[in-house]
């Protein structure tokens, strides 16, 4: 997966993501079996209460948790998979043994989108709630400078990375590696994505140019099921099913 939040010169925040899934789950006809089975399940959902939109999301039908969502005029949220040895299997084991003070990742993101009413509140819940598995949460707010990458172990937030416009950090970008370490050389989607963001420059950043970055191989790869573009100020969420024509990286 690749998630990013960028701030344009006018202070508008754009949050976008490629959802890549299905690695090692069957390879046929130069594509991943699971990835191809997930694509027809992609839906955009408008969650309403008292006939008013509470939040919007891009989901896989049948999956009630959240991986990609927007609370209009408040915040935007995506999550990327994080692999560590202290992984989900330990959380599951604890759950089976009856120790249930952790929360399933996608139920936390769903609860945050449904109940948090500010960027700060969302950030606190995503940083402090004990999880069953590690994860990256990429959160965008509704003010200038409000965006961060929350790197989560099962019990805590590690090295949060924030936008810092003064220091020239006008976007934050996360794939599936800790931002303070180099990515696995075999799976470096961070470098090409950042090269394209830097080449675009802040003065030209927009929904369109962010979509260009997410359409550039290997940021676009055989695992990419959908691309979502979100603008918190307008409350607009757009999603597109993707394909990666050969030759294309398997991940």
């Amino acid at each position, binding site marked *: 997966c690749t998630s990013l939040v960028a701030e344009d010169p006018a202070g508008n925040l754009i949050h976008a993501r490629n959802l890549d899934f299905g690695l090692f789950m069957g390879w046929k006809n130069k594509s991943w*079996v699971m990835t191809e089975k997930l694509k027809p399940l992609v839906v955009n959902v408008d969650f309403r209460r008292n006939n008013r939109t509470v939040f919007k999301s891009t989901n896989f*039908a*049948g999956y009630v*948790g959240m991986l990609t969502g927007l609370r209009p005029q408040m915040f935007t949220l995506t999550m990327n998979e994080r692999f560590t040895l202290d992984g989900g299997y330990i959380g599951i084991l604890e759950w089976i043994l009856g120790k*249930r003070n952790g929360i*399933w990742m996608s139920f936390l993101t769903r609860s945050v989108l449904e109940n948090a009413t500010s960027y700060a509140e969302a950030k606190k819940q995503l940083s402090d709630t004990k999880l069953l598995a590690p994860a990256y949460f990429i959160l965008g707010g509704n003010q200038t400078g409000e965006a961060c990458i929350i790197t989560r172990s099962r019990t805590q937030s590690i090295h949060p990375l924030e936008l810092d416009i003064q220091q020239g950090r006008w976007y934050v970008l996360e794939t599936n590696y800790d931002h303070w370490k180099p990515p696995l050389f075999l799976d470096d989607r961070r470098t090409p994505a950042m090269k394209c963001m830097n080449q675009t420059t802040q003065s030209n950043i927009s929904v*369109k140019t962010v979509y260009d970055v997410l359409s*550039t191989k290997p940021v676009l790869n055989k695992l990419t099921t959908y691309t979502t573009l979100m603008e918190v100020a307008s409350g607009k969420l757009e999603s597109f099913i993707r394909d990666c024509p050969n030759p294309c990286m398997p991940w």
Partner: protein
Amino acid sequence: QYVPPYTEDCRTGMYPPEGPTFKGEVPWYTVDLDLPPSKRWTDVITDKKNNMEAMIQAIKDLADAFVPSGKLTDLVDRDLPLMVDTLPYPFNEEIKGVAATSGVPLGEVILFNIFYEVFTV
């Protein structure tokens, strides 16, 4: 990571989406949070149940490739339903509604919904 043609120069002019990297628009649905949890996903699942069955079948085929006896699938269908009420409300009820509407066994819908943690195994 610069290995053309598997990587490429930064693309431009890709929006609005079209051409070989665009496989289609994503349909919109409404989930009414005022409905009982088990009824919320009925519209979505009614439209998507065949695709859901195909996706879950792909996971079962994969499981059977690892455990040809089919015991892994039996375990999911028999034991996972026992944990549904340990999942937080309203998600447990929503998952039951998804299973009822799609006709997919409850254990397999639960596995799909906790796949993130399971996959890290």
